[in-house]
């Protein structure tokens, strides 16, 4: 009996030890199975104007993109890649684009670059193609950018369309002689040309004056323009033209003022000392997009930064552009092995976006890698930082 019990107990002990080993082995396998693919990290860079000039095109968008990335990382699934966003200031100068890009590439090995300056976008073309980086311009989509290489996307308003509104408005008001004061960069040149093309068809007389970068005193020129009897002034430039507005009104020029999409830069108002009020420009607000989603975005932006973006449309476009890219990057882990390179994979995915419900509206990426679905309207500068849609 004793021996039997002993053997029985011994048997039990042996089984127990084997069971433990079996459990350990099984748990190891299960653990390995659950581990899944290695955690992927995708670094994204943004180059935009955070200081010096056109900061409304840099600070708001960078904050909006940070918001989108933080929301993505907070809600992503375990097998979806982690996204990091790194930001560089180009002071709205194309010369700074290449150094900023190199810094982002070398220090963070970015795979996607967001850049808002049109000239800057053109400047990095060779570099990004060589490095296999996908570029997204979340601010402008003009004809020049349509000549960019296959790694470049534009998820933004169409420059020519947005500024053509000004020309149509001039015609609508019956104005016959128009002066364009234009900042010497590609975007403003294209804005001017878009308006001129329309004005020409309506036989409206016009003159284009290119201003010097950093110029603040336009008094002399303004006196000459007044003498020439222009009945409309179009300020297609940045904050420096605020001085021109002020000086024009000081010279008792009463003709209506028109501007581009960047009037809400606070420095513009400050430099104009209020002369900017009444200026009409093309602009985009939540009312022009998906009102519900846009208001939710503004609320989330405010909760994160305790302020609203100085100019709403650059932030809205940047938020949509970043979310559209993130929406594709979610699947990066699963699909990466099917493509020879990350840029090929992401390019192909983005080119196939036929319908994306963003805060700016329903967006489609067309064959030439530019978006459709963001359309600007005519607004009037009512008070500092406030625009109101022009009712016609």
């Amino acid at each position: 009996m004793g021996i039997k019990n002993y053997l029985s107990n011994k048997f039990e002990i042996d089984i127990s030890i084997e069971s433990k080993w079996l459990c350990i082995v099984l748990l190891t396998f299960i653990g390995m199975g659950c581990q899944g693919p290695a955690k992927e990290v995708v670094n994204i860079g943004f180059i935009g104007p955070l200081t010096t000039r056109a900061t409304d095109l840099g600070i708001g968008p960078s904050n909006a993109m940070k918001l989108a990335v933080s929301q993505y990382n907070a809600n992503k699934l375990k097998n979806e890649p982690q996204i990091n966003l790194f930001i560089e200031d180009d002071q709205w100068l194309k010369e700074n684009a290449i150094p900023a890009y190199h810094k982002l590439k070398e220090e963070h090995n970015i795979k996607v670059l967001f850049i808002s300056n049109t000239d800057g976008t053109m400047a990095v073309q060779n570099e990004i193609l060589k490095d296999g980086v996908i570029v997204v311009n979340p601010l402008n989509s003009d004809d020049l950018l349509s000549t960019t290489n296959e790694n470049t996307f534009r998820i933004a308003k169409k420059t020519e369309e947005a500024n053509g509104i000004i020309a149509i408005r001039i015609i609508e008001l019956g104005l016959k002689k128009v002066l364009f004061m234009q900042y010497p960069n590609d975007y403003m040149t294209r804005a001017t040309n878009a308006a001129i093309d329309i004005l020409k068809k309506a036989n409206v007389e016009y003159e284009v004056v290119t201003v010097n970068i950093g110029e603040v005193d336009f008094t002399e020129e303004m006196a000459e323009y007044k003498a020439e009897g222009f009945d409309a002034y179009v300020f297609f430039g940045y904050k420096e033209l605020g001085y021109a507005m002020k000086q024009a009104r000081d010279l008792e020029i009463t003709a209506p003022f028109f501007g581009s999409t960047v009037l809400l830069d606070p420095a513009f108002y400050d430099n104009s000392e209020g002369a900017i009020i009444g200026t009409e420009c093309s602009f985009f607000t939540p009312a022009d997009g998906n009102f519900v989603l846009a208001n939710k975005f503004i609320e989330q932006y405010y909760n994160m930064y305790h302020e609203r973006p100085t100019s709403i449309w650059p932030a809205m476009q940047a938020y949509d552009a970043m979310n559209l890219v993130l929406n594709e990057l979610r699947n990066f882990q699963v699909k990466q092995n099917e493509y020879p390179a990350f840029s090929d994979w992401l390019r192909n995915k983005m080119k196939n976006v036929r319908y994306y419900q963003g805060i700016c509206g329903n967006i489609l990426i067309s064959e030439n890698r530019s978006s459709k679905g963001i359309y600007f309207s005519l607004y009037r500068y009512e008070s500092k930082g406030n625009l109101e849609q022009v009712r016609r």
Partner: protein
Amino acid sequence: MNTIKSKLILAFGTTITVLLLVMVLKSQYSKKSETIQEVIDFRIEPALEILHEYRTFNNELFLIALNKISSTKSDKITNRMKVITEVELPHLNNRAFDLIATFPPDDPEFSSFSKIISTSDNAIINVKDMFIILQTNNDYAKIEKLNVSSTLLKDKIALQFSEIDHLVSALQINFNLESKTKKTELNRQLINLNKIIVISSTVAILISVLVAFKTIHSIVKPIKILQDGAKRISKGDYEHRVTLNGKDELNELGDNFNNMANSLSRSFENINSKNKELEQFVYIASHDLQEPLRTISSFSKILTEQYKGQLDDTGEHSLRFISEATSRMQFLVKDLMDYSRLGNDKSLETINCDELILGVQTDLSELIKDTNTDLIFNELPNINGYKTALRLLFQNLINNAMKFQKKGVKPIVEIFYEDDQNFWKFGVKDNGIGIAPEHQSKIFSIFKRLHTNKEYQGTGIGLAHCQKIIEMHKGRIWVESQKNQGSTFYFTLAKNPDIDSVLV
């Protein structure tokens, strides 16, 4: 093959097979339903949804075009036109294209959808052209531009939208009809599936129950036969044997059972034979012993009477011891004879217990008088039993109650009873010396005495008699007592001692 294991495997196998058949049947019918549901989900519903959106966007775009010709100013209208023509309708065309890619090329809906897509593309171009023509308010002032726009709207855009609307309406009718037909078909399939499930499940359950019943029956029946056989043999029917058909383990058990019964029967016959021999021996021995005992007794009496005064004290003492020993031996032999005779009288009769006790009282009257005993009994029942044996039972118990008495204490003996459903329970209570608990289990053994003959005379056979008599009446006897506190002897008698049952 006919083992219990095989039967169980067969039963479970049959049940599982039937269930599998039910599942296969259900699966076949489900497939038909799934196919119909797939047509609804992936063809009809998406088509109706796309058609509804075509109708909505085309109507809106046509209204926008109409407004454009009558009103010059609205960014909202222009932007909305762009949204519809650049995003919504191209996306809708893509969806429609993807959908019809799944249609057979000869499907009439395929060509209708293709026509809608191409017409929609053309309408988009024309609307955009119209917006280009009427871009500024100056354009409205130019009659030729207005005329071109009006012509474009009237002759192309309106016709295109009308054609789209017509095609959409026709397709909506077709798809709604198809949806209705498919849903009716699906409904019918589901009803049929339901019926199939109910019928096949019922049949499966019935087959399973039948198989289970047959299997259980084939296992339980032999077990029951074995159980009945065991009961009969336990009641004394040693000649009973079980008959089982088949070749499974239970039939093997039945054969073993019969072998065991044969062995048991032989052993019992052997024991009976030995018992009878033993009883015969006891009877003959006790009977034959009486004769020499009487001779010894007679001669010891003659010697005592004829040689009175001639013998010295030692001789007289010796003669007296011989006489007393002979007398005790005669009692012993007589009791042994009585014990061996018990059970020979096998005639049951109805006995009036009061009369029976009165008879015993008369027999023991001298002892009762000598011991001044109070014998108490009242209205005892009429019972069914062996009269001589029961008389001996009461006599022994009353005699013991009077005999084992404390000195100087008047004996009180009380007889009482209780009526139970199947037996009578009697009690004989005394106020005597009592029995210590450790001795209570021994007193019913033959020749067992707790006291010396000097203290209390007796042979040690009385209670063994009582035990044997109670067993004849299918009852039980026991004592409840404490030393010096009297004793109560309880015994039970079966109301019908013929029935083979043990009563408590």
